[in-house]
């Protein structure tokens, strides 16, 4: 990483925090209206142990939900990408399912699997994030130019060989594009469950306790922590993308 590539985003962050601080001070807002960056430090140090535990819980459940979304999303994408019939059958279902606001699903899931907090949270994270993966994989596979298939088919290659040698690698750039969207969505899903159906776990629960205790800086600190985790996971995906689909970057 060059000095410039670290310097530019770091300065952008500092400018953002200064503007935020300036906005709050200029308006003389009390911290229950809007906390300022200078309130965040104390909030973090006061509850640092809680932040560690809750962040870890949010993170692992998000990642598991995301992994599930990758497996199921890729599977559905392959079905729809290879079979016209499956595409016609599944597309409207998936679109309809995706159109349902997940906040409305949260109480249903919470009741359906009452008490199984980890499972519930993972399920919501998964449900909110598999759609872009399924769509992008199916589009990647169905738009494969016929000549690519013909090159191998004319040599007598099996469908499986064509998939591993051509279709799969050719779809990777689309897959990673969708995964970047899915990462942020999965965080939304995890926190939705943690906030709406509090069970004392995860950053969502910490946010909720900030609300109950009128600890407004804590609520803002949770938001910042979520943003931080989101950035970390996003760049993990970017890193994997460079390794597996770096060739698409010209």
């Amino acid at each position: 990483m060059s000095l410039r590539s670290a310097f530019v985003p770091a300065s952008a962050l500092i400018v953002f925090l200064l503007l935020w601080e300036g906005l709050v001070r200029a308006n003389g807002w009390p911290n229950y209206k809007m906390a300022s960056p200078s309130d965040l430090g104390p909030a973090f140090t006061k509850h640092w142990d809680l932040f560690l535990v809750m962040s870890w819980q949010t993170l692992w459940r998000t990642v598991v939900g995301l992994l599930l979304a990758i497996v199921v999303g890729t599977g559905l994408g392959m079905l729809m990408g290879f079979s016209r019939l499956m595409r016609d059958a599944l597309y409207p279902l998936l679109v309809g399912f995706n159109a349902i606001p997940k906040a409305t699903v949260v109480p249903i899931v919470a009741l359906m699997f009452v008490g199984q907090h980890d499972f519930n949270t993972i399920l919501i994270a998964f449900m909110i994030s598999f759609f872009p993966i399924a769509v992008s994989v199916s589009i990647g596979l169905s738009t494969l130019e016929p000549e690519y298939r013909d090159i191998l088919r004319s040599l007598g290659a099996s469908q499986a060989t064509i998939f591993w040698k051509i279709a799969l690698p050719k779809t990777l750039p689309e897959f990673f594009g969708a995964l970047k969207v899915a990462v942020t969505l999965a965080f939304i899903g995890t926190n939705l469950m943690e906030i709406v159906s509090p069970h004392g776990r995860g950053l969502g629960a910490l946010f909720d306790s900030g609300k109950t205790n009128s600890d407004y800086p804590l609520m803002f600190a949770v938001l910042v922590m979520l943003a931080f985790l989101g950035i970390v996971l996003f760049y993990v995906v970017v890193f994997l993308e460079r390794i597996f689909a770096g060739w698409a970057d010209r």
Partner: protein
Amino acid sequence: MYPMIKIEGVRHAYQTPTGPLPVLDGLEMSLDEGGFVAVVGPSGCGKSTLTRLVSGLMKPDEGRVMLHGEIVAGPRSTVGMAFQNPVLLEWRSILQNVMLPLEIVSNSLSKTERVERARYLLSLVGLEGFEDKRPSELSGGMRQRASLCRALVHKPEVLILDEPFGALDAFTREDLWQTMHKVKEQESFTGVLITHDLREAIFLANQVIVLSGRPARTQYVLDVPDTGPRDLEHLYTPEAAEMLAILRHQIEIAQGRAPSDQEVA
């Protein structure tokens, strides 16, 4: 002795929502081993369907397609194909792209022999030194050369070229014509070239088949003598001009823009 490629009375129609669309109706072709046939005809007349029949990617509704006297029942590894779109795999180097068919076709070549074979072909078409480049780093003409190497790497008996030079500029195309002659001297294969370019047809082939408009039948067969144009200058001789005039006239008939010979007589 059977001809390398024999097509007899082939009829074929595509099923479309509005009913069957006949594309081939009375296709005949016979080509000896080592021969090179160019197939010309109006746009959309079924030339690409012909390549899919010969390569075994499709079966005709009626008639027979035979290689070496054997009916083509499905894809066979003794065929190599190159298209107008070079379809190189962007995540592989040029060398790995060329070696792709060797990963599919069963052969007794060792890893070193495969690399040697691929390197030899790349140097034959003038791509020495580009083995480790990615396709995106190459020009259109170079990618087409690499695609040609991939089609030849497994020593196919039949090389099918479906308008491989169609998207290239005129100078690059002429370069590739000369490369093709060089390749033909070194490699033994029977060639089928689909093209829109009549000069390309008489420059590369020893037999030119003119297909009629859709549904296509074999309308005219022109034999290009061995003394035909094999250097670019020879494309401007009276003999070449005469062949081109005949072919152009046949294309006009195929397009329905000129009365057929029978009608004139």
